[in-house]
């Protein structure tokens, strides 16, 4: 727990230093995307990692947030500091609606029905031309007024600061959730739904809480994205976004708060770096996904956790008890164990 908190604080502190060192717009853009994806991956991880249900419909919330921010600011002239939180709230409402239906299902049914919801929303965005401007999307989402006469670099710095603040809020909320009674209840459901139920933990309540929180965070990320890119189209709901999010969560290690951050960092840079390989890029990406599933099923954090555990066990065996009961090892051990949730569902 302490290791996790220090890790998160360290990541945020390092991220806060970036704009003081980096003055290159391209690098700053990548850094902003890393933060944006870190928020998304963190929000998805709440559902995938802590409730243990595999949601493929997370783009529903991202897209809802992005469209909400775009419509509110272009048609109603709301300022950015208002649209982004409202986008989060609207996405959370959407999360509650979708969750009320989908969270009653488990396993492959949950996967497919969440995916269906995202597809339905994409079709709505594509066809409800009066509201969303259809396949053309909504262009020219306004930038905050204060950026009007500032340069491009200052704009990038501003957006970096906003993204950083969003990530800080996301990590704070997720941390509080995960280490609260509600978070522990969610983990209990993930580990064994029936045992959790038998001791009075209601699966629907806690998985709903995690889903709504995740939806809120990704809705805000969507709102941010709408302003930053200043264009929103139906492709926000596309499966491609979903794939990036999943890969980030899984490379980093689901069910850990640090994992998605590492995943976001790694995947965003990898995608940028592999751009050189152009057409081959996505093929390599596919192979990478397969390799992760086969060789690193618990992600990098799970891998690190296992090594740490083994080292502690080895040193504990040699010098007596104290090393083995080191507090950070305990939660790691729980996470490194393969989750039986999939088999039970």
């Amino acid at each position, binding site marked *: 727990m302490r290791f996790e908190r220090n890790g998160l604080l360290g990541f945020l502190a390092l991220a806060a230093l970036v704009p003081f060192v980096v003055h290159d717009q391209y690098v700053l853009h990548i850094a902003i995307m890393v933060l944006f994806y870190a928020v998304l991956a963190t929000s998805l991880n709440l559902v995938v990692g802590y409730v243990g249900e*595999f949601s493929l419909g997370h783009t529903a919330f991202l897209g809802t947030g992005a469209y909400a921010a775009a419509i509110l600011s272009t048609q109603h002239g709301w300022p950015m500091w208002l649209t982004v939180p409202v986008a989060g709230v609207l996405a959370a409402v959407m999360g509650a609606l979708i969750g009320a239906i989908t969270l009653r299902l488990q396993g492959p049914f949950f996967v497919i029905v969440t995916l269906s919801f995202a597809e*339905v929303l994409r079709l709505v965005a594509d*066809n409800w031309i009066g509201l969303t401007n259809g396949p053309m999307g909504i262009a020219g989402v306004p930038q905050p007024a204060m950026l009007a006469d500032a340069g491009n670099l200052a704009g990038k710095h501003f957006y970096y600061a906003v993204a950083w603040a969003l990530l800080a809020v996301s990590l704070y909320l997720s941390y509080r959730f995960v280490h609260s009674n509600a978070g522990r209840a969610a983990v209990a459901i993930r580990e064994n739904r029936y045992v959790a139920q038998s001791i009075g933990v209601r699966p629907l309540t806690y998985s709903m809480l995690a889903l709504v929180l995740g939806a809120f965070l990704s809705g805000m990320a969507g709102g941010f994205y709408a302003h930053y890119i200043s264009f929103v189209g139906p492709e926000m709901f596309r499966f491609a976004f979903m794939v990036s999010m999943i890969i980030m969560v899984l490379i980093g290690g689901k069910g850990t708060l640090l994992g998605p951050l590492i995943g976001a960092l790694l995947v965003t840079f990898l995608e940028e770096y592999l751009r050189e390989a152009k057409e081959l890029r996505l093929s390599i990406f*596919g192979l990478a*996904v397969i390799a992760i599933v086969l060789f690193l*099923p618990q992600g990098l954090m799970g891998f690190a956790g296992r090594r740490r555990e083994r080292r502690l066990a080895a040193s504990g065996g040699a010098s007596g008890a104290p090393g083995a009961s080191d507090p950070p090892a305990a939660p790691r051990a729980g996470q490194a164990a393969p989750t039986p949730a999939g088999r039970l*569902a």
Partner: protein
Amino acid sequence: MDLLLQYLANGLVTGSFYALSALGLTLILGLMRVVNFAHGELYMLGGVMGWWATTRLGLDFFTGLLLVAVVMGAFGWLVDRFLIERIRDQGEEAGILLTIGLSIFLANTALLAVGTAPLKVEAPIAASPAFFGPIVLTKLRLFAVAVCALLIVASWLTIHKTRLGRAMRATFQDPMAARLVGIRTANVYAATFAMGTVIASMAGMLLGSIYSAQVSVGGLVSMKAFVVVILGGMGSFAGAIAGGLLLGVAEALWGGYVATGWVDIIGFALVILTLVFRPYGLFSRSAERA
């Protein structure tokens, strides 16, 4: 009235195509419990290989179909033995990811190989129209429906009447007991996956002769196949057929009378309703699979 009949006929034709493209998935998802997101890509590979066999190799349609079936069967077998085998007991999640990775890889590698252009598979018969009273259908479509029916019957017979089929059913009821009585379950799993792959790729080639084979079609096919499988209930042959026909007719009527742009939403709406009210499919009586 005539228009309604025409819509119904179109819906039934499209529906039987849906049924065939979902059949491979119902085997893999319903029996093996692998949520196969690469299903659409297997279908796509069938179409692309069919194009290659009929136009580049100059084979006729049926020899091409046989070639596609053999090659894709071997491919499916290898995928199962080398990839899916290793994550067999890790729940759905690993399977979902693995097949997503596989689908990204296959789609983009195929894109590198043949490009984005639609590819025409040489059809075995001409696309001239046939008239049944007020209804017009092309002969090619009727032929395809017949092949669909043939393939569906052949797979049903394989599952229910052959030794391999019996081994499959035993394995999916209780792998441990099946092993105890001497069934090589690893081979049975591989054979099931290979069979699903063969059906998917044959569907891809057959429908590639009517529409066209296209590299980017995979995602759409996967989604439609999931819809059909959920509607019909996992692992049920009759369910896949009924689900396919239902989807086809519903889409045709909706497209004809309400709005063409929203056609794709029908399937997803049906899936959501089905899963909420009858999660084991519209037609399954028991809640638990065998």
